[in-house]
């Protein structure tokens, strides 16, 4: 326990994750909005790791299987996410190629790595530096949704390119796998508990509880 910064959990208080009201955890549900109260999200690390493993496994078929199949005048071409990106790169549409590379390949991978790192820090396997890691956590939560872009592109192309014998597009299994990756990493980020990082830090540097436990002062700013 760090004496300078009292923890709500040490007093048996829990901040509601929906409305922010602080109430004793023994109440069970938030008296204001009815959300279940927890000191820490239950089984946070276990859930995050499980969801991440599932996402990592799905990540492989999502890039190997075609996300859509284009039939143009009898010619059948299977498009994967990577081949779609390469087409843009070859035709000189570099900004779009970079956007697709970032959204579909880089972000899911970075998210899995970042969350693994966060889980390792929260369990004490690596030294936690909560301020940097907190920023990392916030960043992964913010970026994850942009990976959905390829799924939307498939949806749009499949429905608009239905030109009979001339050209038609059907979705492929890769699209489902990729949507799975995006959703699983989003759920994994949501189930992670950033407060565990600070708990870890306090366990490592226990300060003598000489000062009375008092609420910390506020910094006001715009």
């Amino acid at each position, binding site marked *: 326990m760090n004496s300078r910064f009292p923890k709500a959990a040490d007093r048996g208080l829990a901040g509601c994750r929906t409305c922010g009201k*602080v109430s004793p955890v023994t109440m069970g549900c938030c008296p204001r909005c009815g959300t279940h109260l927890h000191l820490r999200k239950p089984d946070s690390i276990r859930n995050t790791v499980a969801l991440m493993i599932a996402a990592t496994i799905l990540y492989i078929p999502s890039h190997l299987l075609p996300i859509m199949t284009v039939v143009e005048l009898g010619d059948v071409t299977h498009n994967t996410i990577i081949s779609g990106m390469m087409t843009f790169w070859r035709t000189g549409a570099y900004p779009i190629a970079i956007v697709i590379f970032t959204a579909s390949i880089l972000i899911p991978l970075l998210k899995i790595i970042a969350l693994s790192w966060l889980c390792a820090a929260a369990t004490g396997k690596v030294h936690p530096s909560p301020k940097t890691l907190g920023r990392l956590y916030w960043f992964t939560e913010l970026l994850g949704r942009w990976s959905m872009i390829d799924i*939307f592109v498939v949806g749009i192309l499949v429905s*608009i390119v239905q030109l009979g014998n001339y050209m038609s597009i059907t979705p492929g299994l890769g699209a489902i796998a990729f949507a799975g990756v995006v959703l699983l990493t989003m759920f994994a980020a949501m189930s992670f508990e950033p407060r565990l990082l600070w708990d870890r830090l306090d366990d490592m540097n226990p300060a003598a509880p000489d000062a009375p436990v008092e609420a910390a002062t506020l910094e006001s700013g715009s």
Partner: protein
Amino acid sequence: MKGAISKFRRSMISWPKPREDVRFSACHYCDTLHEAPPVREGKSARCARCGGLLYENQPASLRRASAFSLAALMLMALGHVFPFLIMDAATLQKKLTLVGAAMSLMADGFQALGIAIFLFTMVAPLLLAGGMIYVCLPLMFGRAAPGAFLVAKWMYISEPWNMVEVFLLGVLVSLLKLAKVADVHFGVGFWAFAGVMLCTAAAVSGIDREELWDRLEVAKL
């Protein structure tokens, strides 16, 4: 005298608070417990330990949230009626609406993807904008609409799943992909959804979570 004026002013710019002895606020990131006195309009309180946002006092929060979410709802209706992508290929013209995109994925046997598109681009923005106006408009007159607590909760749950901006970028990429096959251009729906994106972003950043829940709590009593 000066103290009295500032106290009066503070009561003017702040919202009615539920009766409590001491207000506490716990940081969402590091769980540090703070005493939570009201802050002036336009100011925010940040965690003394990690710097995370604790709560804020946004000017005209309810008015801004209702106005922007009403605009978002109206634009959403426009966006569903008009196509967002129009393609001229040889002799036929194809128009694509959002519902059409979700339906054709389902017709191809990819129900899961169709439902995902349906949820992320139609249900989540509707819950967000519709829920906000349902909760905020009566609250401006000090009333809580029936079921307002549940609606407000769902509004916050749907927030991370609102992917209108990602969808718009997807439309842009599709347009570039199709440009070599056919003559494709944006329809009114695209611009309407761009408006939805801006309005929901403005509404979400304008709403003051602390004020919303405090007012709901007071209105319920």
